[in-house]
């Protein structure tokens, strides 16, 4: 570890923000691109202290904890464990690649574009680091605005429709998440996520809060039937926007399941697991079938994302070690593969100015290197042995089979459908007639630069996934251990939502209790009013 007191996570979160502010004062387009690229590289260097991540513990590491709003017990509380660290690495690594893949694609309002990219990075890293529920929600919502602008300003023909749809869906989904957060605070007396994990809420309370959270996360994943914003947003977004959407935003949904739903509401998670599994299976089968029928390449990949995220959700809600391990691996792998696929479509679009398959037929003769990349990434997306997709899908498959043979069979059908839509795409783009690619330039140096790192990860995680698995192992064990312990609601579970009218709000008393874990963090000001807030007038 670098220095014990160096705020590694804060630096990762706020460096892009500072870079975005600095960018306001830069004028020339080329300079803006260079500055953002440099900022992206520096941000990647800021990842280096994470090499000190301790593989032997499931505790949160690199913790930063400060009182923020004492009156409500809100903290600036950051920390990472094996579940979030890989997502942070992925988020940060994608920043310079996104800058590179937009180099010639974005021609107007270059400054605003790069500011949006940097703000997105800030918000996304923040989401994965936050251990205070309010802080989490702030990053979660703050992400919407730059993403909205990315789609609405630099998007395709129907960008206004797609951007509004994206914003409305995701915001409407997360309004009830806010209510759930408030409810957790009043029932549990804290916004701190690790503290909430150790509490034992009543079953009705767990069920209602689970549904409120799951709605927000399911819209983000997106799971059938909340997926309709995704194809629209993907198709209209610029390449970098699609990459961010597919590689990071979607993962936040499944990350939410792992970080919040299962640890905080374990009994409800088990109760609703059949529902989630059914929706996940529908997402897989439905998403794959719809992907088979698409003419637009971006739409095809978008629907394939629905299917892939279905694999992840399925892996999570079977509650087996391999299932969750595979799910997290697949979150990373899908981020890499689908990000690369969107980049490939984007660079093809720069040549043909069309995303339709029939406008991009038969490229193997004219763009062999491009076809090579497309082939490798498609194989990875399908899960060809040796690539990263194989490994994570295999793990999920083992986990799912462990839980149920029937589900395993459905899973394999989903896999085969994946082969169908990818082969259809490959055949048409590679060897379809009439061939379109005459005169188009093959991959140039800049494109090599952003595709190669992703390809390296495809093989690294495909051939040597051990290190990644070691990172997440203890956290998953801990997650499942707690889940096993808390899946049955104990008798002394705290009062549920159906409390009688106007009972004293525990949140306003609890934090003051001497044995409360947060007692030290509490303000003196709160003491003066609390009695009054809770005791009815007696005269």
């Amino acid at each position: 570890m670098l220095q014990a007191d160096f705020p590694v996570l804060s630096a990762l979160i706020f460096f892009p923000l500072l870079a975005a502010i600095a960018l306001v004062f830069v004028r020339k387009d080329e300079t803006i691109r260079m500055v953002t690229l440099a900022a992206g590289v520096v941000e990647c260097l800021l990842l280096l202290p994470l090499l000190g991540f301790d593989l032997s513990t499931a505790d949160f590491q690199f913790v930063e904890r400060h009182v923020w709003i004492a009156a409500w017990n809100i903290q600036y509380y950051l920390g990472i464990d094996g579940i979030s660290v890989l997502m942070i690495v992925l988020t940060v690594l994608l920043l310079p690649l996104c800058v590179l893949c937009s180099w010639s694609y974005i021609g107007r309002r270059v400054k605003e574009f790069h500011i949006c990219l940097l703000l997105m990075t800030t918000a996304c890293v923040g989401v994965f680091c936050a251990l205070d529920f309010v802080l989490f929600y702030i990053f979660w919502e703050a992400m919407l605005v730059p993403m909205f602008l990315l789609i609405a300003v630099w998007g395709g023909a129907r960008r206004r429709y797609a951007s509004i749809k994206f914003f409305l869906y995701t915001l409407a989904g997360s309004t009830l998440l806010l209510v759930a957060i408030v409810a957790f605070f009043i029932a549990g007396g804290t916004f701190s996520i690790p503290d909430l994990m150790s509490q034992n809420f009543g079953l009705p309370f767990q069920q209602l809060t689970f549904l409120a959270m799951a709605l927000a996360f399911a819209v983000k994943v997106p799971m059938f039937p909340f997926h309709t914003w995704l194809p629209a947003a993907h198709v209209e977004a610029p390449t970098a926007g699609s990459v961010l959407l597919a590689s990071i935003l979607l993962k936040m949904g499944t990350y939410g399941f792992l970080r919040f739903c299962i640890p905080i509401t374990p009994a409800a998670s088990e109760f609703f697991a059949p529902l989630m599994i059914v929706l996940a299976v529908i997402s897989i089968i439905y998403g794959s079938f719809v992907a088979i029928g698409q003419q637009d390449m971006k739409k095809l990949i978008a629907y394939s994302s629905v299917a892939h995220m279905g694999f992840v959700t399925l892996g999570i809600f079977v509650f087996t070690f391999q299932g969750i391990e595979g799910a997290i691996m697949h979150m990373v792998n899908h981020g890499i593969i689908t990000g690369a696929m969107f980049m490939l479509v984007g660079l093809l679009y720069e040549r043909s100015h069309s995303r339709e398959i029939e406008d991009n037929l038969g490229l193997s003769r004219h763009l062999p290197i491009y076809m090579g990349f497309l082939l490798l990434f498609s194989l990875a997306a399908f899960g060809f042995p040796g690539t990263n997709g194989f490994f994570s899908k295999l793990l999920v498959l083992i986990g799912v089979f462990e839980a149920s043979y029937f589900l395993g069979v459905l899973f394999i059908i989903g896999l085969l459908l994946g082969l169908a839509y990818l082969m259809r795409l490959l055949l048409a783009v590679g060897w379809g007639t009439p061939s379109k690619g005459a005169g188009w330039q093959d991959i140039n140096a800049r494109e090599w630069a952003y595709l190669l790192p992703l390809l390296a990860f495809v093989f690294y995680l495909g051939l040597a996934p051990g290190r990644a698995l070691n990172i997440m192992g203890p956290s998953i064990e801990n997650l499942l251990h707690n889940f096993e312990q808390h899946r049955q609601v104990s008798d002394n579970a705290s009062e549920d939502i159906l409390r009688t009218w106007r009972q004293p709000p525990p949140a306003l008393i609890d934090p003051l209790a001497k044995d409360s874990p947060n007692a030290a963090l509490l303000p003196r000001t709160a003491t003066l009013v609390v009695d009054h807030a809770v005791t009815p007038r007696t005269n």
Partner: protein
Amino acid sequence: MLNFTPSLIIPELYMALLLVALFVQTVTDSIKDRTDWLAYAALGGVVVAALSMSQSGMMFYDSYQIDGLSQFFKLVIALGLAICVLNALRNTTLGKTPRADYFFFMFMSAFGLMLLSSTVELFTIYISLELASYSLYILLPLRNENPRAVEGAIKYALFGAVATAIGLFGVSYIIAGQHTTYIHELATMNWSFAEQPMALIGLGLFALAFLYKLALFPFHFWAPDVYQGASNETAAFAATLPKVGAIVVLVRLMGLDPGVEVKIVLAVFATLSMTLGNILALRQTDLKRLLAYSSVAHAGFVVMGLVAGGAYGLAAASYYALVYVVMNLTIFWVITRLADDGRDIQLHDLKGMHHSTPLLAFVLAVAAFGLVGLPPTGGFTGKLFLLNAAWGEGFYLLVIIAAINTAIAIFYYLNMVRHAYTMDQATPSVVPSTVIGASVALALALGVLYLGLMPQGLFDLLLQASGALLL
């Protein structure tokens, strides 16, 4: 006893002095239109109000209380007035009205609101309210003899008079039931409906006068006409400060802890107010009219804090009042900058702002997202406090409806941002930019963000103030 201590009421004395000076100006023909000094005078008012933040004491036979709550709201009013004056100094729609007259009434209204935040006796409250309202009645129609302005002003005055008359009528019931008009004595009384039905009804009627000012459903119908009719600069004033005055009185009244019946009625009003306000706002194309409906929705939010009651609820409502004022002043500042000829701004006037005035477009976006309640703006933090307080008191349905309302509201606020950032005008409009215009806009936007990220100090202050109110 009279107990007159001038050092306690320096902000009020300062305002009174300004009013005298303005009065002299209004009757002196040669200097009637030289009002630029008011900018400095109003900023001085902010300094004075800030310096007297920590005062406390009782005056005028216990009818006038200087406490944390009153000083906080005086600062908010002084701040709001300063922004409104900076805004209105370039008012181009005054026509033949001497500028000194216009500002005299604006300052008089603010003066009344300052008194309102300190008064703790029902008749004194009533007189302060009338002082603030009558000045506003005169201020509203001053817009180049625009018929809409006159219509709005008459509507506001007529219904306002009725509302305050009902409030006065309510006072008579309270006197009949409780035999006193001093709030600190009323606080020791029993307010249950079973034992004091008359007093409770009286309290409800009295509160009605202030709910009218707040534009809470079903007393909201004046808002759209007044906002749209009045000139942009006047609307900025009318949309913000009178509501602060109403909120401070309502906070004091809810400090009486009037019982579940009143709370349920208010909760129903709050629910309807936020839902109807947001739904009606969806279809508006005139920006001020849209903001009027949005203010109806926001009134519902503030009342949510009042309904929750307790130190946390009242502090949350007060904090939201501040946030609301800052957000509205911000968006009105953008509107007045865009309408350099004083016209009503329509949604399509916002097109192309990202190109013609990037700074104002950014400020507009901050204000709009603040009004929705998106983090990291003050709108989110204020709303979070309200939701916490209301949920803690068991108003679950109210909280859920409030949260869902965010999803309704997002569309029309986002629409503004969409017009500003993603659309272009065929003939790009030229918005003259001034140093003051840009710097105040930026300061206001930063204020919205500051209230969102650093609420700690202010909220603690309010928590203490409202805690003291309940003792």
